[in-house]
Structure formats: structure tokens, C-alpha cells
């Protein structure tokens, strides 16, 4: 079973359960999406510029003091397959057929970055019962406070991108996710620096800036005529450390994160469709806005534990059954 089906199921089930229990409640109405913070910092990942060097992955681990993931006996470099308690940022590859041509859907390949998207209206923040996850008003960064975290991992189920990761190998594990290099002790953004990955990227595939600037840049790029020469900025969009010229690829007219689930501060553009790059099908409406009214009503009736447990038990049972049939995702 696919993760997003599970997610949908879980949300649907709990919503249905809640509706059944609280059918009479008028306060269970959903709120609208949170508003975009134009000054929020974000990143634009341009898949067509990515050369797969993984400099961002290495830099991220350096800045955030994380150990490499070694899978094979021959310890070489970091071999992280996905985000994990040791990996906040990973470059994955889409391959089709002979995988000869870059940025082609058929017989081609493309790179895609996985890291926290820093949603405008994040499910994780909404779902966290103890506000360990928060939106920073000034920067829009979704931060994590390990002191507040109770290890419930609800955030993991609430994230449509599978971003928050738990340290399963530790008794008292923490959640790990990208905090735009601005967590306590790192604070690169507060110091006026950019994120480590944007700084390390040799091509400007990961570009740092405010959401507004980045969205403008993304719109500019996707509107360009393929084949024309464009001068790509690198590093921090407000003060690029350099530029490089390159012919414009055939961009899809889709900026991931402009609207998806209320929008994200980290946006992606690409020349192959995002479902191929593993992005979930999302509506413009944020999960948080749909579920929050319900949850808060539940909180007000102090009925959460029972309802949540009922819903989760149902889901768990169903998924364990289907897991048995079909193997993992």
C-alpha cells in the first residue's frame, strides 16, 4: 500500500469517526488555509539544474552535524536512500527505460530533492499535540523543539511528504527534519547566511531566498522559451554570489509548492511531471485547515484520546492486513 493512501485513509477515517461522534457539533467546521507569509524564507529547487553531485547532502550533514548512512560493507560515502534520523536532505533519481537523457520522461532520468518543504499551512504543526513543531512567524521556518516533543510521531503521519523522521534506533528518539539551518546552535538564517545546501550547490539548483522572490523567479523560468539563454543565479537570490548561463530547458508549467496544500516555502520546478518525481497528489486546500476545526472541537470536548485511538486502531488493523498481502510500499 502506498503511504499517501494510508494517509488519506487515516485522515478520512478519523474525520468520518469524528463526524459520526460529533454529528451535532456546529463548531466542527474547517477553517481556511493559513495565509502565505511573503517574507518567509524558502528555497527553490530546480530539478533541471541538478547534476546529482550531492554537495547539498554532504553540506547539510556537515552543518547539522549528522553522521553518514553507510549501507554497504565498503564504507565509501554517504549512501542515504531516503530521509531518516541521520538525513535531512537527499537527492533521488527518477529513471525510465535506458535512462540516457537527462530531464526526459521516457528513456531518461531526472534528479529530485527530498527535504522539508516548509509548508505555509503545515500538517505536522497542526497535528502536534504539544506544539513541539511550530511556524516561526518571522521566517516561516517550521522548527522542532526536542524538549517539548513527546515522541508520539503524529507529525509523521500528518506530513504528506514523509518528511519528519524518528530515531527508531534510540530509546528516546527525536524527530528530525530540516529546519533551514536555523535551529539553536546553527542559526545560519538569523546570522544573515543562507542554508548550507543552497550555499554548497554548484549550479544554483537549490536557490535560497524569500518565498516571494523565489516564486517570481520560478514563474520567470517556467515562462521562458526553451532554448533561450538564461542567466541562472546561484546561492542567495537576494544577493547571488554568481550566475551561470545555460539554455532554458522545457519546463513543465507547474511550480510545486505555489498552491499545493496551501503552498510551501520550498518550491520545486522540473521538466518532468511531479507525480513521476514522487510528489503526492494534493489539493490546494491544506490538510491542516480541513482537520484542525475537527481536532480543536475534539480537544474542547476532551474526547481526543478515545477517538484518536479508535480511529488509529482501525487504520492499523486495516493496514496490517493489507501489508501482509502486498508487502511494503
Amino acid at each position, binding site marked *: 500500500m502506498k503511504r499517501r493512501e494510508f494517509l488519506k485513509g487515516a485522515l478520512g477515517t478519523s474525520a468520518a469517526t469524528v463526524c459520526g461522534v460529533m454529528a451535532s457539533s456546529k463548531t466542527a467546521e474547517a477553517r481556511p488555509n493559513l495565509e502565505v507569509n511573503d517574507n518567509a524564507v524558502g528555497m527553490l529547487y530546480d530539478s533541471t539544474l541538478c547534476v546529482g553531485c550531492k554537495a547539498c547532502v554532504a553540506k547539510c550533514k556537515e552543518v547539522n552535524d549528522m553522521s553518514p548512512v553507510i549501507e554497504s560493507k565498503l564504507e565509501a560515502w554517504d549512501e*542515504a536512500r531516503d530521509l531518516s534520523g541521520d538525513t535531512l536532505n537527499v537527492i533521488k533519481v527518477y529513471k525510465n527505460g535506458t535512462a540516457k537523457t537527462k530531464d526526459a520522461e521516457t528513456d531518461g532520468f531526472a534528479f529530485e530533492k527530498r527535504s522539508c518543504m516548509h509548508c505555509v499551512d503545515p500538517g505536522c504543526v497542526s497535528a502536534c499535540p504539544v506544539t513541539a513543531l511550530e511556524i516561526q512567524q518571522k521566517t516561516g521556518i517550521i522548527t522542532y523543539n526536542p524538549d517539548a516533543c513527546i*515522541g*508520539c*510521531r503524529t507529525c509523521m503521519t500528518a506530513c504528506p511528504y514523509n518528511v519528519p523522521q524518528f530515531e527508531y*534506533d534510540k530509546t528516546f528518539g527525536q524527530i528530525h527534519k530540516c529546519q533551514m539551518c536555523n535551529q539553536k546552535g546553527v542559526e545560519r538564517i538569523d546570522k544573515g547566511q543562507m542554508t548550507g545546501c543552497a550555499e554548497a550547490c554548484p549550479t544554483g539548483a537549490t536557490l535560497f531566498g524569500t518565498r516571494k522572490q523565489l516564486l517570481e523567479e520560478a514563474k520567470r523560468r517556467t515562462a521562458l522559451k526553451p532554448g533561450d539563454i538564461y542567466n541562472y543565479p546561484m546561492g542567495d537570490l537576494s544577493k547571488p554570489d554568481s550566475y551561470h548561463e545555460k539554455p532554458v530547458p522545457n519546463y513543465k508549467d507547474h511550480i510545486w509548492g505555489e498552491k499545493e496544500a496551501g503552498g510551501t516555502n520550498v518550491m520545486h520546478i522540473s521538466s518532468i511531471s511531479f507525480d513521476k518525481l514522487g510528489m503526492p497528489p494534493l489539493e490546494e486546500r491544506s490538510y491542516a485547515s480541513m482537520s484542525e476545526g475537527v481536532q480543536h472541537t475534539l480537544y474542547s470536548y476532551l474526547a481526543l484520546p478515545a477517538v484518536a485511538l479508535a480511529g488509529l486502531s482501525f487504520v492499523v488493523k486495516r493496514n496490517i492486513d493489507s*501489508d501482509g498481502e502486498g508487502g511494503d510500499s
Partner: protein
Amino acid sequence: MAEQELDTGGFDFSEVEKRLGVTRRTFLKYCAGVAASLGLSTSSAVAMAKAIAAKPQMRPPVIWLHGQECTGPTESLLRSEQPSLEHLLLDMISLDYHQTLDTGAGHKVEELKKKSMKENHGKYLLVVEGAIPVKDDGVYCKIAGETMLHITKEAAEGAAAIVAFGSCASWGGVQSASPNPTGAKGTQAVLPGKPVVNIPGCPPNPANFLGTVLYFVTFGKLPPLDQQNRPKWAYGRLIHENCYRRPHFDAGRFATEFGDEGHKLGYCLYKLGCKGPETYNNCPSLEFNNVGGGVWPIGVGHPCFGCSEEGIGFNKPMFALANVETHTPPNSFPTIEDRQQDTGISPTAAALGGAAAGAAIGASLMAAKKVGNTPESDSGSDG
């Protein structure tokens, strides 16, 4: 090549020993080395050695033309090793006309050229060095009152094979860069329908030329060529895929300035504009100037700028980033569907376990731990 000597069936090499001033052993080793770099068997090496040693009278006559160029290819050829390249070359072929190296001067030499072309019609090897300007009927390059365009076409008429030596002769080279003021073109472009072997490079590696000529002398035909008519044995590999700095690219380690820490440690030069990811040549294995020890452009710390690759060298700005289009993603990249498996349990089960157990037990455990630890814990426990 291995130290084992080739079995030459008792062939007498004393003549070649005298002519080239090398020992039989050195000579055979050289032939074996050339054969190996051409991807040929040891029996081919023997054939090659015999061809060089036994039949100086069968040396193909060579007409060597210079168009728009800097004599770089000839200069790079005029180097020496054992047996010396130029010795071997001059021994293998009969250089009937070469503008930079000839003894004579003036129209006398031009006459000799015409005579040789007539006498050896259909047998000589034509080597073109330099581009051929075609704008305004080719007036921008004239030799003895005739345009290079005319001279090339005339010489191509009776040539058994044509070799374009250097990027200029192969695809126009430096002078064909935008706006191409003289309409400079490569040899093939002005000789439609004629087979031309391209040995691009600025300058090209002389071994690539000599290997091709050696093949021609031995087998009487040209070596297998790629789509751009370059010998496959020399231009079949991407520099990036064979570069000694490649591991640094794969680890995301880049030099950002000449002489910075990364540069000193030999990091990848991609960020400085290296065009290795889109240039096909054997520089990483052959190197330059016969010094050894990492003497080639990337070896001395400056990026490859794609001198041999049409559309790259002289077309892309030096510090512009290369396309890594031909970089086949290695298997070490995770696929979109990949999940981390560091816990030993399946991700789904883990997620579910987390959701269920975490909510029920974990929460209380953590809460208990936090309550107990709060006074001492400063920045959250690290486990």
C-alpha cells in the same frame, strides 16, 4: 603492456633498430603499447611492428596542408620519446609536403607537392591542419596565391584517406567561434561525401594521430570511427567518467577558486566551469607533453574547457557550468521510491508501529522521561 615479449616468429628487426636508434625490445614494447591503446590484440602489435620494420618502401606518401591555424598540432607532434614520435612518423610515412618543416622554400616546394599528388594519385594520405574559411570564396587564407578551400578540394581528389588533425580541421575550431568572421569550417564540411577522420583537440594529442596513422599503415584502412568520425579508441570515453577527480564530484566536493583549500586537495573543478562532463577525449589516460605524473589540464588544476568537442570549446564561456547530460546516474543514487531501511523493520510497519505504539506508550514514556529529566536537561537529550 606486460613485460613478456611479443612472439614475432624470428623476424629480423636489426634494420629498424638501426633506423630508429632503439633496441628491438623497446621497439616491440612500443608497438604493443600502441596496439593496446587501440584496443587491438598482440598479433596486431606484431603486424604493426613488422609493417614498420619491414617495408619502408611502402610508406604512404603524405601531403600535409595548413589552413587557418596556429601550427599547434605540428608543434605538439614535434616532441620526443623512445622511439621518438616524430622519428617513427617520419619513418612510417613519406612526408612529401609540410609547410612548417620543409627544407626548401617558395614555389619550388609547391611544385613538388603537385608532382607528388599526381604521381601518387589515389594512394596518398592527406593531412589537414587548420580550418578552412569559406566566406568571400575563401580569401582569408591563401597559400601561394590559392585559397585553402581550393587547395583542400584539389588535394582531396586523389587522397586515399583524409585526416583532419586538430579541432580547427575537424570542426572549425577557435576561428569558427561566433560570429565566425571568416566562415571557418572543418575539413569534412567542405568535402561532402569524402570520408574524413577527425582527430580533434586544441592541440590534439599526437598519440591519437600517430595511432591512427599506424593503424592505416599496418592494415591499409582506417580504424573504427564514432558518429563524428573520430577514432573510437581515442574518443570513446567521457573525460568526466575517467577523471581522477571524479570521486570528489560524486561526494559533492568542489574547488571554488584556484588555490583554495579544496583546490589544493584536488577537489572537482566542475564549479570552475570544467567541461569534462560533456567532452569526449582520452586526456585523462594519455596526459600531455610526455612528462607523466598528472600533466594534463585538469591535473594542473584548471578546468577542461572542451577544446576537442564541437559546440563546447570556444562556444561556452570558460567559467560557464557544463551540462552533465551524459552522466548516467550511478546505481548508488536512491530512486524516488526508495526508503531508508536502517532500522531493520519495514518502513510501513515502523510507521504504523510508531503511530499506534507511539501514541499510546511512547507518549507516556516520553512524558515520564521529560518530567524526570527536566531540571538537568539543557538542550534536549541526544539519546
